[in-house]
């Protein structure tokens, strides 16, 4: 890459970033819950695109990548409505709601396209700017609203960063989630334009079939464990 657009960004130390440890350390959890959670996290660690890219011989194209779901909810299996309902009902009992920290952990580790730093370190993604509306009834539609703060107000990579976040969440979150990604108010000079593009389903789908773009995005995911 030639001249960086923002050559001197403010960088947060990794130890300053919010982690599950802070919030969960205090709360005592039952063994069952811990097992459940470690299961989810071990699943999460498999999401890195890097490993699949290295293992590319198995895949003719990126669209064939099938990533595991964040929860054991079976909606992705495109079964008929009745099947879905049954599966849902069975799994509801031991499902936990998805919280902002979980979303943060998924996206804060994404690498910035021009700096060797993560979106968390650059303060592009902040825990306080993630809102999750997840009804207890998992057959209902849920929503994740993320406001991102580009490092500079004319950052031409804001769309790419937003797209990276959307692709990551699309692949990891259960299908019931609608993902809304907005630039934080006043953080960008073409705020409305970028917001519209990031939330246009058709444009995002088409972008995800662009090999060049997918290569850049999978590079951004290389820092996700």
């Amino acid at each position, binding site marked *: 890459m030639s001249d960086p657009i923002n050559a001197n960004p403010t960088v947060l130390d990794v130890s300053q970033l919010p982690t599950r440890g802070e919030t969960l350390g205090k709360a005592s959890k039952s063994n069952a819950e811990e097992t459940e959670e470690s299961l989810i996290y071990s699943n999460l660690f498999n999401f890195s695109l890097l490993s699949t890219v290295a293992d590319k011989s198995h895949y003719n194209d990126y*669209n064939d990548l099938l990533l595991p779901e964040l929860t054991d909810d079976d*909606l992705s299996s*495109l*079964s*008929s*409505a009745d099947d*879905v*309902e049954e599966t849902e009902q069975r799994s509801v009992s031991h499902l936990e709601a998805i919280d902002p920290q979980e979303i943060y952990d998924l996206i804060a580790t994404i690498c910035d396209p021009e700096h060797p730093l993560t979106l968390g370190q650059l303060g592009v993604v902040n825990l306080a700017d993630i809102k999750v509306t997840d009804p207890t009834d998992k*057959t*209902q*539609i849920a929503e994740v609203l993320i406001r991102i703060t580009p490092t500079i107000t004319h950052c031409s990579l804001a769309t790419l960063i937003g797209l990276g976040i959307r692709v990551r969440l699309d692949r990891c979150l259960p*299908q*019931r989630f*609608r993902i809304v990604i907005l630039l934080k108010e006043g953080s960008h000079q073409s705020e409305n334009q970028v917001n*519209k593009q990031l939330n*246009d*389903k*058709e*444009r995002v*789908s*088409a972008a995800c*079939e662009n090999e060049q773009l997918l290569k850049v995005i999978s590079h951004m995911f290389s820092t996700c464990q």
Partner: protein
Amino acid sequence: MALQLQHTFTGHTDKCWSISVHKTLPLLASVSSDKTCRIYNTNTRKLVSILDENTHTKTMRSVAFKPTGDFPSLAIGSFDSTISIWGKDSDDFTDEESMNNTNNNNEWMLLAILEGHENEVKCVDWSFDGTYLASCSRDKSIWIWETDETNEEFECINVIQEHDQDVKYVDWHPARNVLSSCSYDDTCRVYKQDEYDEDDWTCVCNLTGAQGTVWCSDFEDGDGQSSLRLVNCSDDSKVRVWKKLTGKDNENGALPSTLKDEEEWELDSLLPSVHESSVYGVAWSSNGLIASCGSDGKIAVYKEQAKLNSYSNKQESEWVVLATVSLAHGVYEINCVKWGADNQLFTAGDDGNVKLWKLDI
């Protein structure tokens, strides 16, 4: 009054974007990000054929049956920027049994590939008499292709560039050479064929007011002479009915529309709010009902009824909600809605399914 689920057509392995119901034959076509087009017999509900053969390298976004011809044919628009035209072999069509044969894929033949758009084709639609095919793309243009009965020759006779952004949807009037288009630039436009130069198309009005991308539009059935209306839907979760003003409505003494290119259109009705987010599809049935669907997973059906205005003492009309279905495709978004015969409704969702609903009245 309710929408009853009658059947679910499964098989697509990715988002189903668009469906088309044949005007006279019992055929349904659906296209998907899985790069296939599935054709079903709506009477037997059996799969008739799958069109893929690696024709398109990216998502099949839009499908439209040609309304005319001795044998069925259709057009598919793809994100790979091309359009493919498919038709059934004329000799085979006499064999009714073959319609139900799921293994015989060779019946549908690839007749033509239309190239020209710079990037993703978002929608294709045939004019009422099958003479023209309209296509639109992220390249901001609408192409009008002229064709013949054999579907082998397609000539682009006009490129319309009125929109400032992606053109999301094109829709022909069911009985006239009038076209409408919807765009990412938040507008919906109407075009008329020039009376002297048949190859020329003029934008006669620009319907503004939507607070966001306009996703879809559909003309009201009719001869389009006495009354011309269309319904459209947009990202702002609204469904709007627009009406062309006739000389009678036009009381402000403006020039009659025949003397100039512009037509006067006005917002006829804002339909009752049902949707909570983007409305992706809207359809006006031949018996006057409107259906809409969107990212909130809802389907709604509206009916127009007469109402007496107590102030002016005039007969007016208002739209009421006849039926709604929530989570109609589970938690998935619904991309497209189309009417079939006898109050049948088809919807296509991100779950890859096409559902057949029946409106019980």
